């Protein structure tokens, strides 16, 4: 603009290349990202007959929400035909405590190991974080035997324990990276004032931690809600989790596949996490900004 006048060319307003390119790229990316969801939603509202004749991917000719109703409270899971709805309670009863437990412990670990760097603290941190990489298929059998020797086999508490423990490496990592950026002077000053370990944690650290708390909660809740391997091994029948029930609904090898019901059920099972994302997504970014890398 200024340069234009200086060079003296009488130009029409310059074509806004940068914003157009920016929005175009975002638009294309958004399209790619939304496509699978669109396919699922569209399939879930098409009648089965239409899917059978016109193929799995297509624009609905008739829109019907029957499949959603069926998936919610009619579809048969093993011999119980009450849809997915009874299993939500089980999942909540497991995911909520396990999420909170692992998040709180992760916060404590992150705080203790970054702000009280006793000898070996970093080694402990590495030991904890390496737990992220354990392939869970390999530990199923020792996990089963351990739970049974703790008297927790086939109980909700067993799954809560498992999920909380295997979430710890991740939550600790989150809080570590967050607390590393919190100036040490704060803790030092509080120590000078005579505040102890727990008082500093509850009165100084926790209040500024809510953003990473959100991240950790969302991450853990998603992971636990969608977890299948341990869920199927340690919850059966009426106590199974939604993801296991969903698998039992969708993953039937023999018999007619009801693609619309499968897709509706998949969406219903994902709904609580999706809603959580909608609500918390905002805090995610805004929050993370608050405390992070202003070292």
């Amino acid at each position, binding site marked *: 603009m200024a340069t234009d006048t200086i060079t003296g060319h009488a130009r029409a307003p310059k074509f806004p290349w940068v914003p157009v390119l920016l929005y175009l790229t975002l638009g294309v990316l958004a399209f790619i990202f939304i496509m699978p969801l669109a396919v699922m939603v569209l399939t879930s509202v098409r009648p089965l007959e239409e899917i059978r004749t016109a193929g799995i991917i297509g624009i609905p000719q008739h829109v019907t929400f029957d499949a959603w109703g069926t998936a919610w409270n009619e579809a048969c899971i*093993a011999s119980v035909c009450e849809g997915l709805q009874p299993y939500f309670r089980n999942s909540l009863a497991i995911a909520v405590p396990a999420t909170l437990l692992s998040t709180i412990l992760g916060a404590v670990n992150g705080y203790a190991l970054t702000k009280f760097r006793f000898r070996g603290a970093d080694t402990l941190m590495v030991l904890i974080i390496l737990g992220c990489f354990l392939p869970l298929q390999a530990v199923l059998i020792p996990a089963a035997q351990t739970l049974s020797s703790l008297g927790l086999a086939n109980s909700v508490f067993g799954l809560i324990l498992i999920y909380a423990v295997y979430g710890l490496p991740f939550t600790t990592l989150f809080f570590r990276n967050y607390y590393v950026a919190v100036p040490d002077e704060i803790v030092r000053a509080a120590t000078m004032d005579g505040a102890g370990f727990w008082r500093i944690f509850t009165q100084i650290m926790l209040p500024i931690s809510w953003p990473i708390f959100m991240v950790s909660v969302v991450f853990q809740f998603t992971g636990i809600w969608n977890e299948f391997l341990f869920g199927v091994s340690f919850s059966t029948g009426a106590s199974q989790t939604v993801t296991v029930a969903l698998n039992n609904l969708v993953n039937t090898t023999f018999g007619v*596949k009801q693609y619309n019901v499968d897709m509706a059920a998949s969406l219903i099972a994902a709904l609580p996490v999706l809603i959580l994302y909608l609500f918390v997504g905002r805090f995610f970014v805004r929050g993370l900004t608050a405390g992070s890398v202003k070292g």
Partner: protein
Amino acid sequence: MKMLKIELLTACAIGAMTVATPAFAQDKSVSVVHYWTSGGEAAAIAAVKEAFEAQGGTWIDQGVAGGGGDGHDQVLRSRTLAGDAPGAAIPKASDAVEWANAGYIADLEAVAAENKWDQNLPAAFLPSLKVDGKYIAIPLFVHRFDTMYANARLLAENGIEMPATWDEFNTAADRLLAAGITPLAHGGQSWQDEILFEAVVMGVGGADFFRKALVELDQEALRSDAMLKSFDQFRRLRGYVDANFSGRDWNLASGMVANGEAAFQIMGDWAKGEFSAAGLDLGREILCSGSPRNTPEGFSYVVNSLSFFTKQPNQHQATPGQELLAKVLLEPEVQLAANLAKGSVPALTGLDLSTYDQCSIDTAGFLAAADADGKLVPSVQGGTVNVASVRGAVIDAATAFFNSDMSSEEGVTMLADALQNATE
């Protein structure tokens, strides 16, 4: 010998009476872990459950859906090793053998003797259902693996008869190909590739060769000319499937035959359910037969059975609920109702199948005939006899061959080497 058996039985019975407290005797509940969760399977299970509960049992359903029972096997193992074994589960018979060797299978000899199981089950099944002469698996469904389905309209339009031999099949397929029709509907998943392979070995080499090579794992048979010819035919089939076969679910392949997009499907007899569900008349609109074979014999089966577990190893005492359920499973009415719902045929011999569809009646007839002349062979993948590592090796070799451009010689070597490895 017989005396001894009776004495043992009496001892068992007395044992049962002394162990069982009155309160315990009233509790005839059995938790059942299974993977028969979809349409026809669930209906079949419901028939069993109904009969069991009518006689005072309580069925605690713990179905785990998925892929031929992988989820089931995993749940069964985690729970059993955690000291929380289900009352009953449906491991493959060869896996049940391993559970029996580990001491987790309940003793049902009293029920077996009382209900004359030995006399009422096909002789060929018995060895795979017993360990040390005791039942470890109670057969409920019998499926045939080597069956073929065809779209009758497509065949008629192209002047093709239901092919009986592989040569006839190849001629028919070439004609269909020329007419722009996909000859073979197939889903490229490893287990489906392997089912195709088994059908080819059965058809090219015959039942005795199949048994020698794939059940007894005789290295000479595995490296023989008949095996080479089988791989040739298997390779040829690759040219008869459409370009997009990879990863397709088997029921979508059935759908292609139902819709007239493809002419044939070679699949176990559970595919019937898919055609009936599409509203097609089995025997008229959809033709069914054994898969092509060069000698008119052989029948490859899987027995789906229930095994009964004890919570602690080496405590063989069955609970009253387990004994009742075991008895119910082999009652003629239960076998008839359950198999009708699942599309399989009863394990019990000599039942009146007049309510069944023509394909099933034929299957039952072939089953009896094959049992009589010793041509009844257990399918590899069914796992009635072959142990898991062997099943895996055959599946790997079949799918690796089918999805690559390996020569038949390479295929033969790969399979024989893999089986040598797996049984080491």
